[in-house]
């Protein structure tokens, strides 16, 4: 259904009507922006990159194979373009920007039940742990856990083999679990 709708818009665009492209932008802008942001690490660069990604996509629509999903094709452009920019900038700004977001920033001193507080702490630790992952792993997490894409789709977007991706995902999981345990231990020790 989604693909059909996208393909109808694409057909109209290829026939010379630019307007349906706005629908595609509005539909996919959040994830494209999120991909760029997670690779580049700051809003300004991410916004610029996301705009470039859509312009690139618009001019490349003629090459798009309608048998495939438009979203997969677009995310692939987004991923590759953001990586290229990150390499070009040769900056590690994303680190500083991610570091700005303090791990415990979302923990407030509001009175909450103990279990609610625990859950908030765990989630906030986990968020910090995800943010500290390398950009490539952050994209895997985003596409797999947030966008619920299959391993096949993610491997197509990121250009990995499916088995390789499985291994990467396993490593990410273990890393997050380890960080979560370590930080939980620290917090519980401090609480004692």
């Amino acid at each position, binding site marked *: 259904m989604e693909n059909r709708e996208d393909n109808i818009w694409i057909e109209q665009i290829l026939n010379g009507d*630019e307007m349906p*492209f*706005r629908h595609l*932008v*509005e539909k996919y*802008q*959040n*994830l494209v*922006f*999120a991909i760029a*942001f*997670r690779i580049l690490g700051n*809003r300004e660069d*991410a*916004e610029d990159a*996301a*705009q470039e990604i*859509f*312009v690139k996509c*618009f*001019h490349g629509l003629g090459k798009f194979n309608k048998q495939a999903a438009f979203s997969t094709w677009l995310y692939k452009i987004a991923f590759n373009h953001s990586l290229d920019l990150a390499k070009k900038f040769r900056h590690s700004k994303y680190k500083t920007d991610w570091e700005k977001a303090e791990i415990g920033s979302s923990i407030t001193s509001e009175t909450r039940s103990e279990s609610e507080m625990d859950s908030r702490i*765990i*989630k906030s630790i*986990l*968020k910090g742990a*995800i943010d500290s992952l390398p950009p490539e792993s952050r994209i895997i*997490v*985003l596409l797999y*856990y*947030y966008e619920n894409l299959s391993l096949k789709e993610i491997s197509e977007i990121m250009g990995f083999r499916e088995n390789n991706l499985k291994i990467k995902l396993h490593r990410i*999981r273990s890393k*997050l*679990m380890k960080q*979560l345990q370590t930080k939980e231990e620290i917090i519980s020790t401090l609480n004692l």
Partner: protein
Amino acid sequence: MDRDSHIDNLIKQTLKGEGLEMPPVDFSNKVMDRISKTSMENIYKPIISKRIFLSVLAGAVLVVLVTILLVKDPPSGTISTLNHFLDRIPDFHFRISLPPYILYSALGILVMVLVQTIFIGKIYRRMFR
């Protein structure tokens, strides 16, 4: 396995709870502006690109060189025919006395430009249809 699904759920909950980083409100307008600007740039592109122009030029130079190197015979039919035609115009005493290679080069370039223009025109019309 159980631990895996536990951490999977936790990650999902965290990400969904947190939401995505949102682009600015006028993001789609900015993209559409950029697209219409680049579309205009496409419209105003010269019909003959730099590459094609250079290849036409190279072809023309080649024709001149080949003509200079290979045509050693005295003026052949073309000039005589032209002069014969000019002779028939009363009170008009003008005779073309160009070296043959210049005439052949000029004709060659003319043919090439005409052919290129027709072909390029067709290609561009097909591209923008």
